[in-house]
């Protein structure tokens, strides 16, 4: 009894100080306190008080450990926010430690609940992507590789548990494909490019020469093989092509186009269109579907035509640049978006897409190609208003690859297309020289 009184006397002032109000719980380690701490931590995050948020989330993790056990999955919610708070403060070392702890915890869950392990893996993968997107993190590429390896391990786990042709593999295989695209986009970073101006046949060219890379070829091959495997998985259950397997062909075509293999891409686009027609998708619906170009690669692999249609919003094509670390890559998902920094602005661009080979920025074999048939790029709106941004948005547009509009499986010209380009957080925008 005396011990209890001493404990209450010691703990109450500390609790009162923490809450600053009436105590809603009877013990520091009361189960529901973890949720309360998370809610309070989120308020700190909103107020940009990351240090206080870190401490609060750390307490929430401890409470979850005491209540549910050292290996309990219930820690993950608080742990995820704790890592976010650490990343927001650029405490890379501590964030790395907590990410390793998250991974250990998730591996412990694997033997107990396979699907919960997959959920945790997805959560961890998103955290790693967030860490890799920080332009101030010199170790950012390492996190991308860690995220990719995590997806591979999930693939191995699914193969071992559910089989090598289980459809559960599809989103994970596509995650690896996307990771390879982000890896490839690294070579478009300005730090790895040489700015050059050249003269050829009375035309001056200005552009950026690319570093040659073996990893580019490996990434292409891995992406191609995985997309073929996805198509195989989606078509194994049926003899005739299904919507899902026909759409998988579309993604194969996108991949070829992203790597500059226009002829292979056009053949595959035609094949996807033929397969969709063969399974009874009406031509007018197909024309509508393929009449709206998309920025590649699609962050999500759609397995039904209706899903793809739902993703095609009216109005300008929306492109949210993810991070300056991966030029030309769009935000993979809302969960990966940074909420702690200001949005640097956006631009509305109008352009024409032509079914012609891409033009290059340099009259040289080592070049950055402009997007497939992208012409007459016109900047209609800029936020903030800054004439120096005009050049920047044109440069960023040159890094995008759009799926060409198709009619009966063949690319057609499309005029006055509009795209809303949202600059990446942390994008260093040029300042107006006039001002």
């Amino acid at each position: 009894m005396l011990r209890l009184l001493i404990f209450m006397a010691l703990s109450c002032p500390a609790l009162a100080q923490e809450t600053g109000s009436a105590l809603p719980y009877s013990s520091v380690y009361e189960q529901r306190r973890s949720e309360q701490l998370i809610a309070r931590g989120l308020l700190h995050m909103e107020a940009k008080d990351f240090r206080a948020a870190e401490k609060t989330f750390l307490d929430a993790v401890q409470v979850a450990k005491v209540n549910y056990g050292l290996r309990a999955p219930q820690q993950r919610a608080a742990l995820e926010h704790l890592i976010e708070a650490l990343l927001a403060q650029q405490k890379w070392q501590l964030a790395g430690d907590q990410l390793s702890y998250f991974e250990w915890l998730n591996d412990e869950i694997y033997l107990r609940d396979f699907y919960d392990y997959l959920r945790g893996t997805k959560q961890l993968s998103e955290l790693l992507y967030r860490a890799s997107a920080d332009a101030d993190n010199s170790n950012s590429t390492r996190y991308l590789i860690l995220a990719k390896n995590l997806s591979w391990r999930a693939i191995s786990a699914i193969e071992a548990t559910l089989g090598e042709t289980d459809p559960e593999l599809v989103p994970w295989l596509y995650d690896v494909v996307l990771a390879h695209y982000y890896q490839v986009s690294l070579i478009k970073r300005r730090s790895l490019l040489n700015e050059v101006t050249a003269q050829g046949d009375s035309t001056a060219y200005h552009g950026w020469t690319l570093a040659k890379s073996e990893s580019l070829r490996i990434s292409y091959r891995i992406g191609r093989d995985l997309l073929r495997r996805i198509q195989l998985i989606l078509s194994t259950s049926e003899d005739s092509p299904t919507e899902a397997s026909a759409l998988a062909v579309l993604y194969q075509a996108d991949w070829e186009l992203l790597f500059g293999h226009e002829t292979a891409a056009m053949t595959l686009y035609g094949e996807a269109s033929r397969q969709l027609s063969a399974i009874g998708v009406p031509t007018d619906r197909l024309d509508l579907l393929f009449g709206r170009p998309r920025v590649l690669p699609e962050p999500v692999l759609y397995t039904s035509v209706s899903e793809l249609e739902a993703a095609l919003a009216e109005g300008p094509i929306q492109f949210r640049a993810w991070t300056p670390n991966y030029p030309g890559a769009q935000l993979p998902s809302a969960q990966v978006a940074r909420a702690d920094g200001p949005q640097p602005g956006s631009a509305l661009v109008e352009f024409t897409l032509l079914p012609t080979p891409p033009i290059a920025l340099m009259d040289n074999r080592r070049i950055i190609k402009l997007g497939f048939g992208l012409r007459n790029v016109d900047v209609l709106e800029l936020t903030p208003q800054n004439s120096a941004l005009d050049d920047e948005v044109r440069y960023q547009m040159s890094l995008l690859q759009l799926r060409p509009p198709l009619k009966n499986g063949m690319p057609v010209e499309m005029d006055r297309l509009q795209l809303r380009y949202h600059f990446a957080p942390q994008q260093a925008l040029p300042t107006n020289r006039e001002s």
Partner: protein
Amino acid sequence: MKNLIRMMMPLLILLGWQACAVSPPKGDSGQFTPTDAEVEQYNARVAPEDRIVCRQEKPVGTYIAKRVCRLQVDVDATSSLHRQQLRRVLN
């Protein structure tokens, strides 16, 4: 006789070409090297010392490159040994 040789010439050329052609290994031959995707998947789940690397190598005596896969530690050890030997020769 000359006519016979002339008539047989395309056949002889075809036979000669067939003799040079290499047929791919059949069945579950161990000669297949893993694909890039298989290598990456394997490397993602093993310790760094157990990782493998695959690359195109030109064996001594031929210009035809061959895809060879090795353990990363073996590649490192071989490079280190070669550097040591070279240093010994130069000193």
